[in-house]
Structures are given as structure tokens and as C-alpha cells.
């Protein structure tokens, strides 16, 4: 399993057992996490601001784009998707694929149906 200390230990010279090196490795990782948190705050702010734009009703779901980027950020930075075993990425890709199939097939009818105007006439 990946973790920064193990990576440090595998370095030639084996400086990893030094507590100072371990401390540096942790602080480097905390800096990366902090940057990810800041990015999330910025994206959240952007999503909040964009939601007040006067977009047409059918286009309103576009305000979710920063939210999608936030989901990607959490998955990559906090869930360490890129660093786990290949099987983990396979499960994540499969989940996204199934979700895409579910949402695209499920919404195909309402998004493509043609509505015809029916005149308001009374039939005797």
C-alpha cells in the first residue's frame, strides 16, 4: 500500500528512519492537503457566485460544473485515487460508467421527447 513514509524509506541512503525526515514528509503531505482544501473553498465560492447568474431555466444545471470539479478534487486529494492499487481505479471508473449509463438512459426520454401543443377544444 502506498504511503509517503514507505516511499521515503525506499530512498537510497535510508534517511527515512530519521524522525526529522518523517516530520518533513508529513508536512509536505499536509501542505498538499491544505492546497486541495483551498482549491475546494475557491470552487465552492465560484459555484455559489455562478448560481446567482440569470441563466435560462433549462441551463441552470450548468451551475453544477464547479461542484463536479470539487468531487474530482476530493477523490484525488483526500481519497488518494491515483496512488492506490489499479483495482481501486478500476472500481472508481466502473462506478462512473454505471452512473453515466443510469443517468443518460434514465433521462433520455424527458430530454428528447417532443411536446406538441394540444388546442383546448371540447369534444361533444
Amino acid at each position, binding site marked *: 500500500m502506498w504511503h*509517503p513514509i514507505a516511499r521515503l524509506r525506499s530512498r537510497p541512503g535510508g534517511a527515512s528512519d530519521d524522525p526529522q525526515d518523517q516530520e518533513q514528509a*508529513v508536512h509536505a503531505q499536509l501542505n498538499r492537503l491544505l492546497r486541495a482544501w483551498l482549491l475546494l473553498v475557491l470552487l465552492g465560492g465560484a459555484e455559489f457566485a455562478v448560481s446567482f447568474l440569470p441563466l435560462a431555466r433549462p441551463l441552470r444545471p450548468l451551475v453544477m460544473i464547479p461542484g463536479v470539479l470539487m468531487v474530482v478534487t476530493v477523490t484525488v486529494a483526500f481519497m488518494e485515487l491515483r496512488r492506490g492499487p489499479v483495482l481501486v481505479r478500476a472500481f472508481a471508473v466502473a462506478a462512473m460508467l454505471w452512473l453515466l449509463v443510469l443517468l443518460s438512459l434514465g*433521462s433520455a426520454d*424527458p430530454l428528447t421527447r417532443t411536446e406538441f401543443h394540444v388546442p383546448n377544444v371540447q369534444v361533444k
Partner: protein
Amino acid sequence: MSSTVVHDFQYESPSHQAQTAIAGMWLFLATEVLFFGGLILSWIYSRHWNQIGFDAGARETKLWIGTLNTGILITSSFTYAAGLAWIRAGNTRRLIQCITVTLMLGLAFLALKFGLEWRDDFSQHLFPAASIFKITGAEEGGARLFFIFYFISTGLHGVHMVVGVALLLWIIRRARRGEFSPLYHTPVHAVGLYWSFVDIVWLTLYPLIYLVGRG
């Protein structure tokens, strides 16, 4: 703290066992994606046919609570990930501190959502099954549908949060007993994946409930 890590007979090494556990958690989360996917589909379908009513319902939600809760959850994911980084360096004390902060943030989320927001929603006649409903006229049907989505989705998310809080308490208890080390911290990692996933679900629900219907 133990310096050696044992593994069950069916695995070739402790690392193999840890990788299997993490992959298992990801597979569980993949099923959760489909579980919440059905909810998102219901939102797409219902909003498409009831846009005016849906947007009228969305304007009745408490934007400040939803936004504050979003900040709380992304911060809690950060503090949990920081705790994981600390235990990888063998610092159990920092792990406990980080997870305790995560726990407090989780409880704050639940208090705001169910102690304040839901209570206000009920008192303002926004419960969709009630005979008296705040929104009337042409928008009523769509707004009732919106609040069905709102209560079911935030309720299910809340159940996941409660499970997450229980898991955090379990991690704190085990950490206090000194059961985690740089060589063995798989439960900390697995619970972190679950907690971040619950965060992701909220990041999806937040715009669907509070933002898309405004503007």
C-alpha cells in the same frame, strides 16, 4: 504499539491484506454511487417536468445553512486526511486530535441540518405530505415534489453521516488503545474513504437543492 503486523492465512502479506480491504471499500462505495445515482435521476426527471415548482421550492431552502454545511464537510475531509498522514508517520496523538476535530465538524453538520434546518422547514409548512403547504397555486405540485426529494436525499445523507460519526468514534477508541502504527492503519484509511465519500454526496446534493433553483 506493535512493531510487527500479522495477516490472515488467505493473504500472502500484510500489504496484500491491506490492499484487499481498501479495494473492498472502494467496491462498496461504487455500489453507493448507484444508490445515490437513483436519487439524482429522480431529480433530473422531476425537475424537467416541474421546473417552475421545483425552483419555487429551492428558493425556500436555507442557503446559508447549506453553504455553511458545505464548508464544514470539506474541512472535515481535510482534517481526516491530515490525521491519516500523521498516523503514517507514527503519531497517534495527532491522529486522535485530527479525528476528534473531524467528529466535532460532523456533529456540527448534523446539528445544523436536523436541529435547525429541518425544524424550520417543518414549522414553515414545507413538509410535502402535510395538508397545509406553504407554496400554493400552480407551483404547489412541483414544489411538493422538490421537498420530497429534499427530505429523502438529506435524510439518507444524514443516515450516512450518523454511520460515519459512529465509525469515527470507533477509530478514536482503537487509536487510544494504540492499535494503529505506520505499518498497520488500514481501518483509518478505509473509514477515511467512507467519510470523504459522504462529503462527495453532499457536494452533489448542495447545488441540486440550494443553487440550481436560484438566480
